């Protein structure tokens, strides 16, 4: 016979399923893309809080924050956020879903010459596919409910394609860390599963910062 606790747990699950609409006939699965984009928005908001703490102000290009469905080059009409120093000096622009060129850009003619990055801060005049020199800060967002070690390997591979290992350079954004990377971009891997905190030290050697951001 089922114990009281088991019955109680099953009733809770039934209530959970009802609350998300599983019990209704004909309900389609929620689009998985939506979750990834909502997490990008959440990470973008945390990036802005972080940069605000480093003294920056912001200006939005429009009243609607628009995420693209896939990566591509930067167009002047794309939604972006100006990162402003003092009252007027635009020192960077935040874009989402951008394909960033790799260090080998002058020697590569296939699709491996760029990699999509979920959120970037680039130099103000950047248009098209940013070069590693134009990238000030890049973020990969992992909205997967379970953190995988392959996320770390992927971030390390991208870091290698963006910067050479260096004993230490100052980043171009104020208040940033000294990075072991040349060009000296900052690089974050943001994730929701706290298990990812067990993988911080190795990527830190290459200035890939693992940041646990969970709504």
């Amino acid at each position, binding site marked *: 016979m089922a114990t009281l606790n088991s019955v109680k747990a099953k009733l809770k699950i039934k209530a959970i399923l009802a609350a*998300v609409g599983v019990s209704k006939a004909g309900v389609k699965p*929620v689009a998985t893309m939506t979750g990834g984009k909502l997490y990008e*928005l959440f990470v973008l*908001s945390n990036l802005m809080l972080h940069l605000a703490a480093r003294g920056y102000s*912001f*200006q939005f290009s*429009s*009243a*609607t924050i628009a995420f693209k469905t896939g990566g591509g080059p930067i167009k002047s009409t794309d939604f972006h956020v100006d990162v402003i120093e003092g009252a007027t000096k635009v020192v960077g622009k935040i874009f989402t879903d951008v394909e960033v060129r790799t260090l080998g850009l002058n020697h590569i003619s296939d699709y491996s010459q760029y990699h999509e990055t979920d959120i970037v801060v680039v130099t103000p005049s950047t248009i098209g596919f940013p070069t590693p020199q134009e990238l000030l800060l890049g973020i990969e967002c992992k909205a997967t409910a379970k953190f995988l070690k392959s996320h770390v390997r992927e971030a390390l591979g991208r870091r290698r394609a963006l910067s050479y290992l260096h004993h230490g350079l100052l980043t171009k954004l104020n208040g940033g860390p000294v990075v072991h990377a040349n060009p000296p971009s900052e690089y974050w891997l943001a994730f929701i599963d706290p298990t990812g905190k067990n993988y911080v030290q190795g990527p830190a050697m290459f200035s890939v910062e693992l940041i646990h951001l969970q*709504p």
Partner: protein
Amino acid sequence: MTDEELLEIELELIPLAQRFGVPEILDDSLYRVRDSIETAEMPLSTRMRVVEKIRALERLLSIHDLNTYHLAIGNIELAMQNSHPDLASQIRVPIRAVVSDDDTELFAFENLLDLSEARELLRSLVLDLEEQ
């Protein structure tokens, strides 16, 4: 609660993961643990595996929840409040967020479901299982 009962509960979680399009997050191979850096990975106990699966589902719901959208917009407003005083009067504050393809709006985040009740129930289920 017996292992058999825990396995029954585990099965009941499947429709929830399917609803959000990622049934693979309940794959047992994702729920393993190491005692220390020197040891090999081991499967979790049945109870801990079920607890961790429920936690993963709560995280899954968090990235589909209208409340996360409001939290993000709140963070952005907070970041904007610290703007340079000379900029304060001209700052454009975003009022909504969408996913679009070129100029076609595909989805507006304001249409997300409020999943606060389901998330709260998942968290309380974790507490129930941990207390036993």
